[in-house]
């Protein structure tokens, strides 16, 4: 009886078998990594805005307070987007005929809103509220990153559920005195842990069980 397979056949067979196995594992790893990639989380991308608005300029250089434009951040679920007239309070005086500001002037003139592209966005089945986070001493920077250093605005953190959970499971390290909430330069005191514990008590922060209950964010 003649040999059916050459000597090398076995090497091939093993190669294929191992290859398949590795490929399967690799596939899983790739998927795993992709789900956590900046690409998937739309992190650090600056969409094309009608006006190249610079937080860096307005916050760091001009020292405008967040609440000047995002006026409802303490009183409403939404931080609130500045109406055109808010922009024009200043820009009717400065840069009155700067090319980049044309859309703003046009918006006011034609009474048509400016369509900004949203950068920090959660799915519609997630009910995030700004007011409560501010009230409990969670700073802008916790979710929006160093927005005061962004010439063009981008999403600084991956808004994955895990990101929210990390904080809701152990809020203490993310808390700061309420008056420091808008301060991007705030440095935690040496004994941050103690401060965290104190604020947890002062602000009546709920227990992790309550904070991670599904109904807290989903309805």
């Amino acid at each position, binding site marked *: 009886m003649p*040999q059916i397979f050459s000597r090398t056949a*076995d090497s091939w*067979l093993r190669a294929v078998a191992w290859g398949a196995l590795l490929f399967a594992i690799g596939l899983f790893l790739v998927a795993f990594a992709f789900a956590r990639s900046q690409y998937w989380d739309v992190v650090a991308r600056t969409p094309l805005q009608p006006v190249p608005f610079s937080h860096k300029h307005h916050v760091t250089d001009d020292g405008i307070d967040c609440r000047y434009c995002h006026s409802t951040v303490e009183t409403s679920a939404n931080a609130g987007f500045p109406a055109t007239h808010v922009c024009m309070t200043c820009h009717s005086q400065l840069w009155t005929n700067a090319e980049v500001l044309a859309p703003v002037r046009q918006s006011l003139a034609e009474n048509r809103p400016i369509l900004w592209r949203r950068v920090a966005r959660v799915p519609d089945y997630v009910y995030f509220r700004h007011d409560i986070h501010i009230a409990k001493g969670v700073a802008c920077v916790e979710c929006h990153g160093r927005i005061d250093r962004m010439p063009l605005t981008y999403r600084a953190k991956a808004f994955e559920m895990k990101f929210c959970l990390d904080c809701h499971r152990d809020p203490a390290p993310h808390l700061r005195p309420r008056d420091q909430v808008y301060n991007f330069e705030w440095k935690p005191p040496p004994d941050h842990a103690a401060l965290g514990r104190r604020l947890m008590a002062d602000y009546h922060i709920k227990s992790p069980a309550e904070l991670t209950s599904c109904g807290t964010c989903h309805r």
Partner: protein
Amino acid sequence: MAEHLLGYLGEFGTADALFDATKRAKADGFSCIDAFSPFPIEGMADVLALKRDHRIGWITLAGGIFGILAMLATQLFVNVDYPIEVGGRPLFAWPAFAVVDFELMILCAVLFAVIGMFVIIGLPRLHHPLFGTPRFGLASEDRFFLYIDATDPKFDRQETRSYLGSLGAWTVEPVRP
């Protein structure tokens, strides 16, 4: 013309014939021998002293233990990592967990056993010198073969050939690489 020789393959007509032949070969002090048959021959394992091999059993046990522990660990971790009240039941609902643990135990036990088997008997091995010998194909049909390897200390190019004949082999073939 001293081309390389791996051993001799003797062909027998019945299971009994092979059985006796193997027994005698063993008795005559051949150690590197193997028997081939279309179906397992009762007792052959004893003759070739393979009986005392319990590796499979242990491997299976290991698999089972691994499976049950792995799943139990998962279940406990899951309920510690994100404790959620479900139907007023406790976080560690042992009776409920047991079910899947059992399944995983079985799954891993079987997987281990099968993989273990192939490792032990060295399969898959598509190419084998024996396949090269003309009549070996009948080993999977109705013939029975006794193989004496050249590495056997008692092996001798002429002697062994005739020895196989004396065991009642119908044909004796050299096995070449």
